[in-house]
């Protein structure tokens, strides 16, 4: 246990070093946010949708603020897989899956807080309909935060599944881009899931990708009622468990087959 706490602390400390990347990330995400919100304003000018523009704008900004949580991947692990230094990790008396799960959790958490908090503060100050609105209720905010945590658990589990593919192919690009495309689309980052046709939404919201940020945002904005929250949180927890089990199994298979090449 001590080892896992220690790696969590250290990864957070390390993430704090990357302040330049943080500024770059904020600028990039702000740009995307503004473009997307402007796009929806143009759309709403011609034909107003069922969902109010304030809610769409809040949805877009929260997706952008926590973008890092969704897509951040551990570059060190990618390198280690490629150059074989992962052999060192096999000589440690710790569970490798847990070790890297914790590591990437710290990275995603710290990385997204560093970018998300300043962005949320700034977007609060934007004019109505362009920025973020306050949460629907205190309860909604509370449930949203719990949902965000469960979403983080799902994101780390998904990340480790992607890594399991990388261990097979030795290159992170192929599978990662494919899975990222699925994630960006089905998580609501590209187009808010709330704007999908209702019949589609019934399916999409059940998928693991909707558990990442869509569920927390809808709880925050009141799209999901507090009375629905237990069911939503349960669904998230269920997916987190399933994704973790798949990852653990996959890593164990990889470990048995792993060959470290070269001297």
């Amino acid at each position, binding site marked *: 246990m001590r080892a896992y706490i220690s790696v969590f602390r250290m990864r957070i400390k390390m993430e704090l070093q990357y302040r330049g990347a943080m500024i770059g990330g904020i600028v990039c995400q702000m740009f995307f946010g503004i473009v997307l919100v402007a796009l929806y304003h143009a759309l709403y000018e011609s034909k107003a949708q069922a969902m109010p523009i304030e809610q769409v704008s809040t949805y877009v900004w929260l997706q952008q603020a926590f973008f890092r949580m969704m897509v951040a991947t551990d570059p060190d692990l990618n390198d280690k897989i490629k150059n074989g230094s992962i052999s060192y990790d096999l000589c440690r008396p710790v569970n490798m899956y847990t070790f890297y799960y914790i590591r990437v959790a710290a990275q995603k958490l710290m990385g997204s807080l560093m970018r998300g908090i300043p962005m949320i503060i700034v977007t609060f100050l934007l004019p109505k309909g362009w920025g973020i609105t306050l949460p629907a209720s205190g309860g909604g905010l509370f449930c949203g935060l719990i949902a965000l945590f469960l979403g983080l658990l799902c994101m780390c589990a998904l990340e480790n599944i992607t890594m399991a593919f990388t261990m097979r192919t030795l290159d992170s690009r192929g599978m990662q881009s494919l899975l990222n495309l699925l994630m960006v689309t089905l998580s609501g980052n590209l187009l808010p899931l709330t704007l999908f046709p209702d019949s589609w939404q019934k399916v999409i919201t059940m998928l693991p990708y909707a558990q990442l940020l869509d569920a927390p945002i809808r709880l925050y904005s009141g799209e999901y009622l507090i009375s629905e929250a237990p069911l939503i949180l349960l669904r998230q927890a269920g997916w987190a468990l399933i994704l973790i089990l798949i990852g653990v199994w996959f890593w164990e298979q990889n470990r048995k087959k792993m*060959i470290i090449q070269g001297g």
Partner: protein
Amino acid sequence: MSYIEVNNLRKTFTVRKKREKGKLFREKEIVEALQGISFVVEKGELVGYIGPNGAGKSTTVKILSGILTPESGEAKVGGMVPWKERKEYVKHIGVVFGQRSQLWWDVPILDSYSLLKDIYRISEKDYKGRLNELVEALQLEKLLRTPLRLLSLGQRMRAELCGSLLHRPELLFLDEPTIGLDAVSKLSLRDFLKWENKEHGTTIMLTTHDMEDIAELCSRVMVLGHGQKLFDGKLKDLLEKYDTVRNVTVKYDVEPICFGDDYEPNFPRGVKVTRKNGELRLTYSPNEIPTADMLAFLQSAGTINEMTLESENIDHLIAAMYKEMDL
């Protein structure tokens, strides 16, 4: 029972090759990295493990450190089977792979050490004592707060060694630890390994291509080639067999006329002669011509200005040995 017991260890790898033109499938090649290796190592020994590239040295180290599972054969280290009881086993060993890194790239090495402390559950008191000892022996004081990425290769190797020894392993595997190091770093690394072995009785298994490492450190050497063990014993005994050549460089005040224009016919049979910058370089085998006779012959020919006698460079000996063993 010995500390390390390895019996008939086998490991094969499948290498997939690029598809040849006109063929439907890629070819697979089965490479037998280890073809039944057996040896024992006692506690506190310092064993060198040599062989040409691709002989199976690293494979052995990886199997014995629990990373790879062999096809067949047995191995026990301190009563444990490395690949079966991996998690328990690895607490007792330390590993340094010369070409890879275990410390975190972007953080000060001290932070990496404190993570290792938690991974191996070293008590605070034990950790402090051991760290101080290692930091002093490896001269790391000034580097502790520097991120790994800013260290030179030699500094990094010292830092890696410290990381591998914090938990006081009984057994240390070193896979080419001196690769790319300068002379000073090499010497200090060797001194440190000797010290660690003597002071703490740590069993050390070392693979290397640097014969000086072996000559300096290892009382015992194993030679591996084509996945088989070819020699196991003292380095001296190994070299004696191949140490069959002497080189003499001699310079005369005035070059003796009796050597003629083409030298070799006028020398004892079997001597090779080359001439460069007024110096004669002779290569002969002491088994055929005793060195005393050779020197007497040279002295009788004229007044010697300068002369050196040397045995073949250790690398040449090993190369000759590999050649004879058809490696």
